């Protein structure tokens, strides 16, 4: 009994203390006038994390709906028996379980043939099978074209090649992840887009209010043009595109954060950054149009590889050094980082169609190109970017060859090489020296990392409000320490959401793999996303002292024109791998009806 009374008293004490605190607080606040911006920050800092989380999940769930290919391009039919749907533009055929079309008959080789579509016609390629491939009775030597209605025989197994009929365009698929797919089916992307716009408008106002003297009309203009561009692009996507729109929405969100960071750290760069975003969007659309056809994609590959060789040579001859690495070219009217653009060529250089991939296992050209890229980077003393290239090389090379021993061999060689580089270049070695004990070097070689950690802790979950941070004063914070700026000004929730979006890009790509039309898209998407992943890891973990600080950009978020354009270009490869067609309005409505009925019961 006593304890209850005591507890009761304690509660009353607590309430009284709290009330006293509130009264005293209000009195203190009223004693000197409060500016509007303080109230504004006080309110909106709670809204940003909520919006960020909502945007993240509202984009994530629809994108992970109904995995795999949902479109059928034709059939292989055994007369009066059953037919096998052709789900891709490139299909491996054989006895192996890893074949896209499994024919489990003796005489059929494990990896027998590839049936592929390109340049507007279908081709069958014999993979040096024992039984051979015959089209309409004639043996195919290497590869030959097939048409709908032809009969194709793999050793003794004979099929008829038939076109897809109407109604097989978007096939519903059943899987054990259906429950997960259902989570996303009622999320309207228009509303998600509105949330993103709200985030950007509120954030823009917050920055404008805290910018002080730097707040000019051009800042408002920049944000308005950016938002207008988003709206136009979104409208075009909705009207003419048939794919899911959430991927672009996620990137809009990141680009918005990019403008926030730039406005806070380098207001003078806003116009340039806006131009880079707009250019990036255009490049994104253009590359998608070009690589819609795999043949054109291949031509683009040779063109870009050629260009990048020229760029690298230029860089090595007339390059300028900034922050220790000689990786800038100044053309008088514009400066850019050529190695950023080489990334696009690099990803394309690794691609191959399935028939090429399974017949010619030769990687020499790709290894040669990768080697020269990485060599050039070492000459430029750009350690971070060479790690990015090397990591992406491993991912692509493994996809090309599937041979883990070769890859392990290459890796071992590279580690030894890296060790030698680190030992011989004192500039790089000093970065490794601080790694893991930055607090002991808090004011020397650990300066950037400790300031990032301090800033991230100062922000808490909600942040101190855009434009109120101190990390922006640290050199290169708008590129290398950008995660710290996000944490400090916008809070841990928003910063983690930004990084998780990039992690999600990778999950999304893996999810798309199975449904890719062509291995060209599969490899380029994986290559692009692995560049994003390595760059993110080096940037974020470097600034947080989990990895050595190497000074690379955080995709879509760091300040930097070349980086922004190239990120959009790489994103187009991921987009191209997504073959799925978003459910039409009628379908979405019927799904919604189904749900309401279900609730009625």
């Amino acid at each position, binding site marked *: 009994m006593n304890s209850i009374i005591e507890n009761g008293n304690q509660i009353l004490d607590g309430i009284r203390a709290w009330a006293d605190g509130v009264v005293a*607080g209000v009195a203190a606040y009223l004693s000197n006038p409060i500016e509007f911006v303080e109230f504004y920050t006080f309110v909106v800092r709670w809204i940003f994390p909520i919006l960020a989380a909502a945007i993240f999940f509202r984009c994530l769930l629809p994108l992970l709906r109904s995995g795999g*290919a949902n479109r059928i391009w034709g059939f292989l039919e055994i007369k009066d028996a059953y037919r096998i749907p052709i789900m891709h533009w490139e299909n491996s055929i054989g006895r192996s379980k890893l074949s896209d079309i499994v024919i489990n008959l003796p005489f059929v080789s494990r990896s027998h043939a590839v049936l592929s579509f390109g340049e507007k016609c279908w081709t069958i390629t014999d993979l040096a099978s024992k039984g051979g491939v015959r089209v309409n009775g004639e043996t195919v030597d290497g590869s030959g074209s097939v048409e709908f209605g032809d009969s194709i025989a793999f050793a003794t197994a004979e099929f008829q090649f038939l076109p897809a009929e109407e109604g097989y365009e978007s096939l519903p698929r059943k899987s054990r992840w259906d429950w997960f797919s259902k989570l996303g089916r009622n999320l309207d992307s228009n509303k998600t887009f509105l949330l993103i716009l709200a985030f950007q408008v509120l954030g823009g106002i917050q920055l404008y209010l805290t910018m002080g003297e730097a707040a000019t009309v051009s800042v408002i203009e920049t944000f308005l043009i950016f938002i207008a561009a988003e709206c136009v692009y979104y409208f075009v996507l909705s009207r003419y595109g048939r794919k899911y729109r959430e991927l672009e929405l996620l990137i809009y969100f990141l680009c918005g954060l990019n403008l926030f960071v730039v406005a806070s750290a380098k207001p003078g760069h806003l116009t340039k950054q806006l131009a880079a975003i707009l250019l990036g969007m255009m490049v994104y659309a253009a590359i998608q149009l070009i690589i819609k056809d795999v043949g054109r994609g291949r031509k683009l590959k040779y063109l870009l590889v050629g260009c990048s060789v020229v760029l690298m040579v230029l860089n090595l001859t007339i390059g300028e050094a900034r922050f220790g690495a000689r990786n800038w070219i100044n053309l008088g009217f514009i400066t850019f980082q050529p190695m950023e653009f080489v990334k696009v060529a690099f990803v394309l250089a690794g691609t191959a169609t399935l028939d090429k991939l399974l017949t010619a296992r030769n990687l020499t050209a790709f290894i040669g190109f990768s080697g020269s890229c990485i060599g050039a980077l070492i000459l430029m003393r750009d350690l971070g970017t060479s790690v990015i290239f090397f990591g992406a090389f491993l991912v692509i090379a493994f996809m090309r060859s599937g041979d883990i021993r070769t890859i392990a061999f290459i890796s071992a060689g590279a580690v030894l090489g890296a060790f030698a580089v680190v030992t011989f270049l004192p500039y790089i070695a000093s970065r490794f020296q601080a790694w893991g004990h930055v607090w002991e070097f808090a004011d020397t070689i650990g300066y950037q990392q*400790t300031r990032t950690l301090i800033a991230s802790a100062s922000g808490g979950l909600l942040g*101190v*409000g855009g434009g109120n941070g*101190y990390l922006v004063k640290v050199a290169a914070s708008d590129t290398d320490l950008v995660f710290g700026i996000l944490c400090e000004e916008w809070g841990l929730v928003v910063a983690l959401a930004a990084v998780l979006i990039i992690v999600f890009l*990778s999950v999304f790509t893996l999810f798309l*793999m199975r449904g890719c039309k062509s291995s060209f898209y599969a490899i380029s998407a994986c290559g692009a996303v692995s560049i994003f992943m390595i760059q993110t890891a080096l940037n974020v973990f470097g600034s947080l002292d*989990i990895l050595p600080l190497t000074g690379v950009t955080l995709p879509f978020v760091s300040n930097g024109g070349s980086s922004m354009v190239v990120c959009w270009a790489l994103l187009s490869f991921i987009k191209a791998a997504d073959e799925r067609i978003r459910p039409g309005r009628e379908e979405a409505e019927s799904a919604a009806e189904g749900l309401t009925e279900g609730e009625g019961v």
Partner: protein
Amino acid sequence: MKLLTRRAFGLLVLTVLLAAGLLIFTVRYAVNASDWAQHPTNKHLYSEGRLKIAGILYDRNGTALLQTEDGEIKYNENKTVRRALLHVTGDSYGNIVTSIPVAYGDRLSGWDPVNGAYRFHDKVSGFGSDMTLTLDADLCTAAYNAMNGRKGTVGVYNYKTGEILCMVSLPSFDPENRPNVEASPEKYEGVYLNRLLSAAYTPGSVFKLVTAAAAIDRIPNLDTLTYHCEGKKLINGTEVTCPSAHGDVTLKEALAQSCNIYFAEISLELGGKTLQRYAENAGFNSRLTVDGIQTAAGKVDVSEAEGGDLAWAGIGQYSDTANPLSFMAYVGAIANDGVRVTPKLVKGKGLSSFLFGANLRQERILSRETAVKLGALMRNNVIEGYGEKNFKGLELCAKSGTAEVGGDKKPHSWFVGYLDREDCPLAFIVVVENGGSGSKVAGNVAAKVLKAAVERQTDGK
């Protein structure tokens, strides 16, 4: 595409690594963010290495002990209060690591995991960052005065709620007029150490309370058992001495007269292993955590000791050391029927302390019967030994100690005990370094402090 799906393994590895890295960061953030934010270069909180603004530190009666505004630190206006509470308020240079501004820098600075260093209108919120301690500044001052400049410590705490009312450590100085500590190393020996929390002294005879607890439990015919004391005895070639020849003594008499021979004999009877167990139960060889501040650990190592060593260990000499706060908590357990309430220093805000378990940590370290018997013996000590008239009306149960510290220095003077009163459930400890006789010197300090404590307690403060 099945083939390529499988070969996208490399990308999967990268994804897992990136996710793992984020997890590492999140865990580090959860553990360390408070420390990162407290770095003196953090311009959100500090200017020129000093907190720009901080919450106010209050004692239990609402007396402000420490305030920070615009980088200026303000202590209590009374000089003696400042000296008495130096080890609580710290010296503004962070030298006293157990002081509240060091241990609770994050809370006082207004940093919290949700809001970070954000402050609305450049004010720390009083509700979030002000702190109220369980200490009574006036009682601390009384204790400081009673110590009369001698080195040592005084602690008083409520053995039912765990609230520490008095925590004083000497030497001390006025943080507002900082003396040149380095110039007089003798005078300011260990001044940055809060002796109640961080010291470990030879306990001397107060350790007999541990040996007695073991005896009560383990010796069957204890009531009739007597040992003969002639003032000294040779045990395995080591001489154990006693201040006087007590003749045949029972436990009751032996504890009241602090007979060394009796406790030496009974220690041999109990054996090293048993004594070790009881010492560890009593809190030796481990640290207490007082609201996140760790105490020093007392030390007893007798499991292998034999003969003379074991005999001396049983009377609190040999290699024994005791941490004052930890020993006070042991005495508190005797008072509280064997349940030790871990002392605490920060007064929980009514509502939150109720909701979040009131951070009251209790642990039974003695059986109820043993505690009651031991308590009766300690009461007898006062009546027979220390003189009830010196502690009138306190219902005092106590044990003194005069711990030899070697050399030609005077022994440390100890006095520990508790008030067996429902309205003032207080346990205390007094240590006067090189003070001489325990019951006289330390007992005298205790009498003054306890009288003040009871007065204040019964006044409703």
